[in-house]
């Protein structure tokens, strides 16, 4: 076991994939010479060369389309979009081309690409550099969406994402990049579509993903002092999400809160709540509660952003509501 920060764990996953599979290439803006705007791809060009770690101009649509074409023709491109907000510029390639090619062409080809992109606020980066847009991608049949919460899951899920035959959106929370957590000396791939129970509890289930897993654990620890035992589920994969693990947890606790940084309306939490209200109806002792951002853009001022982002206090209050 070694302590590795989240960004370095992603770097290691990329590095190991490049080393083990000659079909893997990295492509994106400032990823080679500059090592990525968050330093995630640092030193990979020096190690694997400019033919496999490729700097591009600021041309998101062309990069994404090129990733699709390259994936259809024998490569496994991993491309970086500097901020998730900029994925608006790659939507045709991802939604109309990558997501549909396997289906639309009758199974003749697959599109094994990975789009890596950071989401989330907390840096006063403003309305166009802070959004959590994962629900958009989760809504598109043909795409898979992953949001790791720590170094271990970042490494393991990224290795699986690169090996996966279908297009995967791999979302990294900016606030996690510098956070250290334990990673095995010989880390392994983690299965997509499988959630992890990171804290056991019998009173209420909290479903979270990405950076909000840590807020959920903090809230659960605080609630424990008040005699409330919350179970925390790290979803890890948003699409396809692990319905059976979530349902099994609900069957134990009979109460559920879903928390994410993304806007609450029409979000990941809405989907999970709707499914659990349907297939888990007999298990429920209280309404399922969602905790997400209000229906407004992310604001720049730290004062506004702090009020905007779901807090541990809001989550705790939501948990208490289910126990009233």
């Amino acid at each position, binding site marked *: 076991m070694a302590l590795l920060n989240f960004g370095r764990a992603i770097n290691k996953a990329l590095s190991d994939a490049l080393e083990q599979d000659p*079909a893997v*290439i990295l492509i994106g803006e400032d990823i080679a010479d500059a090592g990525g705007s968050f330093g995630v791809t640092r030193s990979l060009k020096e190690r694997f060369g400019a*033919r*496999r770690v*490729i700097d*591009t*101009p600021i*041309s998101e*649509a*062309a990069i*994404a*389309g*090129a*990733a*699709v*074409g*390259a*994936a*259809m*023709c*024998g*490569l496994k*491109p991993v491309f970086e979009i500097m901020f998730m907000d900029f994925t608006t510029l790659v939507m*045709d*390639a991802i939604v*109309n*081309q990558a997501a549909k*090619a*396997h*289906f*639309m*062409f*009758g*199974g*003749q*080809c*697959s599109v094994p690409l990975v789009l890596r992109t950071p989401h989330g606020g907390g840096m006063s980066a403003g309305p166009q550099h802070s959004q959590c847009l994962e629900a958009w991608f989760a809504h598109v*049949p*043909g795409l*898979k969406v992953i949001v790791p919460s720590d170094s271990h899951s970042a490494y393991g899920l990224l290795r699986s994402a690169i090996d996966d*035959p*279908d297009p995967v959106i791999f979302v990294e929370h900016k606030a996690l990049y510098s956070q250290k957590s334990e990673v095995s000396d010989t880390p392994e791939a983690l299965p997509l579509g499988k959630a992890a129970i990171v804290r056991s509890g019998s009173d209420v289930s909290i479903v979270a993903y990405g950076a909000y897993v840590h807020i959920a654990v903090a809230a659960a620890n605080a609630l424990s002092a008040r005699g409330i035992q919350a179970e925390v589920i790290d979803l890890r994969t948003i699409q396809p999400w692990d319905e059976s693990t979530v349902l099994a947890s609900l069957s134990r606790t009979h109460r559920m809160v879903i928390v994410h940084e993304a806007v609450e309306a029409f979000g990941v939490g809405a989907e999970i709540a709707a499914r659990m209200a349907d297939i888990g109806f007999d298990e429920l002792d209280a309404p399922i509660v969602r905790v997400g951002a209000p229906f407004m853009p992310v604001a720049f001022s730290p004062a506004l952003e702090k009020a905007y982002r779901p807090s541990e206090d809001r989550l705790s209050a939501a948990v208490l509501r289910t126990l009233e």
Partner: protein
Amino acid sequence: MNVTDATVREPAMGPADPSLLLKWYADLLLIRRTEEKLITLFADGEVPGFIHLGIGQEAVSVGVMNALTPSDTIASTHRGHGHALAKGMSLKAFFAELMGKEDGLCRGRGGSMHVADMSIGMLGANGIVGAGISIALGSALAHKSLERKAIAVTFFGDGALAEGVLHECLNMAALMKLPLLFVCESNGWSEFSQTAKQIAFSLGKLADAHAIPYARVDGNDVVEVSVSAAECVASIRAGSGPCILECATDRVRGHFEGDSQKYRSAEKLSLLPVSDPIRVALAHLTNAGIPDAKIKRIAEVTEAKIEEAIAFARNAALPEFTSAFEDVYTAQGS
């Protein structure tokens, strides 16, 4: 099956070669007669949805494809029947796809706007204007990265000159010296509007700006297209980076089948047969002294082939919903 490296054969060359002229004529006629049949099949409701016919533009497909090998890849457009058939797509599977049948190349999931055959490097027609350009860019990147001899070709209409992704791809292809041929089928129309009223620049000047070699040819003359395409392809294969080939041609039918083209001058439309690529090819055959009987024979064989393919497609089974649903993602472990 994704596109992989295959044996590279030398492309056929030599426009004066009568056997090549005959082959090109046969290819042109096959595309033309197939699309003419589609007019009826569409009107009768046997081909559902939207179809976009390339009648009048066949020489671009046939001329460019002559310079390619089976391992070269092409990304096509919504007007992609000619590209698909010239690249060598099975006619039976083509008709079956357009009729929404299980035996279609895409098992009835894509239809006219998405005909594709990865086994021959046909990466798909495309419902989004300009989208094939960046897919071809990526295909070229794969060819270069995996040190294949193959090149990629993107077909696009002059309507796509207005798409931003074209500019991004020209720049990246030039910067990275990718083995990519840009083929613009300039038919003068951007859907229902004249391209002249939509584009403030010329493709030639855009090519200059990117320092990409550019040629403009009569896209209705299969010999002219094939000579220029062969030059472009030779330069690209030699590692000199991308080329642009602009082919001036005519879209005889509307933007989509059923478009009455009230926005076009009836007089100008009536003049189109003068530059018809089939007539131009016939003139080449006559000049080369090919006997009429041989030409007639090609027409008979073409008709028989098309009738056989249509009969096959009519009898083909309809697709099952369950198997389509199972193909949203790739089966794991396969």
